[in-house]
């Protein structure tokens, strides 16, 4: 049956309610099993030896002493992970990042690993591995790395995207450009032009659960992997390719996931654990320490961004331009490209140009972090927009409303928008009581807008109806924050039954078809679409069974509120058949009843948010406190509004940490100085106020219920909103994130000295 994904504007019975999540009770009683909570018979403990150098040639590795230690069952190096990537450069980078092959490229880069009967012996064994390094000059700063005198991280890299291939290699892997119109003409028409440069430091997703897995490779070529991941099907593909396994013989089960935010979208330890298990002939559990998570997983980019915006006296923006340099770690990325696409996405611009440069540095390979690349670009652009509003003498909200993108606007990154929420979020903010609340001395209010694309992708879902009429829903998108509740609501809605009769699980890779990972805010968007499709397929069978029971044409059987109904006066004597009654008879009417769905969830509606923030800055110490915070965001349709609020609040809190405190600090030796939660301080409960939320619902025309992804956009505006609030509180424009007390004091001193 062809599935029609278009928005239909129906009335909802289940969607929009707030039931308790199906996985909740396990999580409040300690029974939920995360990556490190699973064990297998005969399991060994795996540990990884990591480079202490930011950049070094690995001249030799002697593992003989470690191998002889009693209790050690396997020691591996890159030789045990032979290159099977067959010219796939991206996969080769993943392989090299899992285990350094010729050079160690950052402090923390894996160089060897052991499996032993317990953790103590494994740690002792690491000390017995002798690695001879030839230390090379390193570079960790994004601007220094882009300079032509910088130490080369990979001498095979010649900048892509230039008109001519450059003669010399460089740390800049790629140049990308977006925009339309003529910015020179636009700036010539401007009465006011603001031009500023900004920097943001590298941050980490900071999920509380470190990466963890249990790998078991059997002699017959079959293997099992239990792992905390945002995408077990993608992990299966990558691990199978790197290990030379057939994908169907590697069964990957996603554990409960203790936070990911983009950081659990890439394999690091998993191929190593599989290689250790293959060599030892026993299962291996490999759990990263927190130190390893900071040094050797995938933090976000550090950035350096130049912005120029011009406007006429009436407040119309005539031109906007940005140059964005994003660090990608020692391997090629597309992070500046995404920043260049998102930078001006909130605005209706006739002349716009953005250029992105991807820059290699001796830091861990950059991974996604919630709306990856967008928060830094928004920080730069929204700060400059506020400055321009001030020069024009316009209210910051009114200036944005005047220039906001609308339905039909050609986005700065190319497409033409359908119905979008930027205007409505700005109008909601303009009239929000927060905007009129009084402020005290040293306090300031700021606001900023944010955009994220959202993603759909490949999705596969099974819906099985039990003989008692209860429903099992098997989805393949990992539940990172309550999607099993949302998807159960959707199944209940479509079937017309109560939420309590649906139980959703995340199926393993051998039980369901391929699913892309939970990223791009796609979990609820795409799996709800697949669930609706699967439920409609099941309803078709339910109607057929009822028709068979009644011996009438199936066309005369309708499905309403959980019942098959015979339509037409001639059927007046036929009582409706409930789902439960049809299911109970299924053994005699043709067997089990199920609905399946395999689709590509196209049409993820773009997402916009506007945030308001009040801060208080202590001019003596430079310390900044957020004292009030409001998030206004378009959800399309909030399937489970409480979890939508949770996404808004969580993204805002992460943004607050990024804006004020969090940063990777590297020493001159290229080593990470603050690889722990004591020195890399994420916001704690006493740092934050309540975070107010307002959900707007501008339906996505490409989803039956109007759903848009909601998970990521909430981290986009905070950096800028807080920077604007600080600027309004103390009169200095902060251009370097995080706005830690020393940076704010330095800015205040500079202002005083004029």
């Amino acid at each position, binding site marked *: 049956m062809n599935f029609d994904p278009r928005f239909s504007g129906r009335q909802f019975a289940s969607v929009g309610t707030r039931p308790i999540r199906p996985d909740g009770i396990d999580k409040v009683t300690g029974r939920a099993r995360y990556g490190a909570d699973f064990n297998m018979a005969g399991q060994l403990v795996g540990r990884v030896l990591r480079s202490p150098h930011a950049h070094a040639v690995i001249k030799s590795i002697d593992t003989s002493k470690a191998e002889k230690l009693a209790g050690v069952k396997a020691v591996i190096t890159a030789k045990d992970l032979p290159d099977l990537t067959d010219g796939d450069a991206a996969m080769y980078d993943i392989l090299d990042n899992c285990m350094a092959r010729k050079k160690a490229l950052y402090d923390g880069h894996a160089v060897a690993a052991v499996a032993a009967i317990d953790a103590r012996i494994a740690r002792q064994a690491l000390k017995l591995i002798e690695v001879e390094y030839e230390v090379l000059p390193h570079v960790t700063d994004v601007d220094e790395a882009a300079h032509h005198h910088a130490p080369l991280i990979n001498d095979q890299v010649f900048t892509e995207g230039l008109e001519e291939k450059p003669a010399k290699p460089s740390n800049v892997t790629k140049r990308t450009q977006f925009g339309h119109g003529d910015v020179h003409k636009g700036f010539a028409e401007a009465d006011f032009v603001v031009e500023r440069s900004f920097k943001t430091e590298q941050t980490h997703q900071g999920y509380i659960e470190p990466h963890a897995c249990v790998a078991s490779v059997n002699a017959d070529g079959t293997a099992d992997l239990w792992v905390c991941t945002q995408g077990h099907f993608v992990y299966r593909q990558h691990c199978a390719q790197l290990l030379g396994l057939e994908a169907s013989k590697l069964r990957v089960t996603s554990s409960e996931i203790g936070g990911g935010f983009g950081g659990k979208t890439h394999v690091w330890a998993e191929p190593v654990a599989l290689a250790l298990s293959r060599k030892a002939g026993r299962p291996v559990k490999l759990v990263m320490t927190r130190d390893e998570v900071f040094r050797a997983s995938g933090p976000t980019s550090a950035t350096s961004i130049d912005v120029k915006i011009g406007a006429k006296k009436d407040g119309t923006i005539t031109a906007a331009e940005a140059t964005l340099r994003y660090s990608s770690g020692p391997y090629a990325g597309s992070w500046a490209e995404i920043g260049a696409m998102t930078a001006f996405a909130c605005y209706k611009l006739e002349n716009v140009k953005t250029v992105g440069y991807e820059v290699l540095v001796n830091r861990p390979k950059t991974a996604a972090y919630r709306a990856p690349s967008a928060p830094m670009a928004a920080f730069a652009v929204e700060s400059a927009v506020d400055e321009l509003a001030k020069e024009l003498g316009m209210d910051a909200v009114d200036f944005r409303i005047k220039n906001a993108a609308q339905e039909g606007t050609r986005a700065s990154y190319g497409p033409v928008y359908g119905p979008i929420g930027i205007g409505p979020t700005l109008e909601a903010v303009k009239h929000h009581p927060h905007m009129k609340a009084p402020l005290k001395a040293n306090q300031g209010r700021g606001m900023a807008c944010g955009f994220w694309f959202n993603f759909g992708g490949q999705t596969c879902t099974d819906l099985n109806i039990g003989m008692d009429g209860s429903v099992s829903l098997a989805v393949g998108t990992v539940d990172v924050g309550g999607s099993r509740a949302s998807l159960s609501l959707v199944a209940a809605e479509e079937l017309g039954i109560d939420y309590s009769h649906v139980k959703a699980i995340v199926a393993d890779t051998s039980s369901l078809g391929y699913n892309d990972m939970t990223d791009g805010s796609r979990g609820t968007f795409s799996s709800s679409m697949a669930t609706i499709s699967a439920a409609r397929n099941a309803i078709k069978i339910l109607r057929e069974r009822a028709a068979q029971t009644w011996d009438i044409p199936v066309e005369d059987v309708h499905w309403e509120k959980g019942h098959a109904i015979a339509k037409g006066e001639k059927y007046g004597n036929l009582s409706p058949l409930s789902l439960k009654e049809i299911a109970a008879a299924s053994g005699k009417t043709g067997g089990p009843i199920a609905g399946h769905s395999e689709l590509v969830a196209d049409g993820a509606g773009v997402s916009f948010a506007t945030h308001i923030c009040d801060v208080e800055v202590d001019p003596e110490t430079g310390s900044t406190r957020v004292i009030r915070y409001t998030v206004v965001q378009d959800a399309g349709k909030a399937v489970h509004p409480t979890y939508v609020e*949770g996404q808004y609040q969580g993204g805002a809190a992460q943004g607050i940490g990024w804006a004020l405190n969090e940063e990777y600090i590297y020493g001159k030796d290229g080593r990470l100085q603050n690889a722990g939660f004591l020195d890399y301080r994420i916001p704690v409960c006493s740092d934050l106020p309540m975070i107010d939320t307002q959900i707007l619902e501008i339906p996505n025309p490409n989803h039956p219920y109007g759903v848009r992804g909601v998970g990521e956009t909430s981290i986009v505006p905070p950096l800028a909103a807080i920077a604007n609030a600080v600027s309004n509180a103390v009169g200095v424009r902060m251009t370097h994130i995080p706005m830690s007390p020393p940076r704010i004091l330095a800015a205040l001193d500079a202002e005083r000295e004029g």
Partner: protein
Amino acid sequence: MAGVAVSTTINGDAVEYLCQPDETLLEVLRDRLGLTGAKEGCGTGDCGACSVIVDGRLVCSCLVLGAEAEGRKVETIEGMAHGDQLHPLQQKFLEHAALQCGVCTPGFLIAAKDLLEKNPSPTEEEIRFGLAGNLCRCTGYDKIVRAVQDAANVMKGA
């Protein structure tokens, strides 16, 4: 390395185990006793995911040695509900959706239980400082604070 014989009480039950002298209480709970409700988020006492109560005192079990549990009373998340009767904090965390990924939740529940036992009527500020030793990266703490406030009200009325 010779093991240390330990006799202790965990969630009201007498428990005996052998552990290494340098083994943490968290390792004993998780790896020897199968009590995996306490989580290791950092191993350095910074995140609170491994919170347990030892003789009425809230501790990070990653900073306590297994041998130190000798003769003491240890309370973990696995003992918080009475049979199928959830503790009011557990119930309110569910009702308020005070968890997203849930990995910090056992630690927050133990810390909140300790807080309410010592201060049954905490202000919002007292809750925020009382739970400042526990990291949550998903929720922004808003719904956690509200759940604790609601649970405190329920417990006072009980």
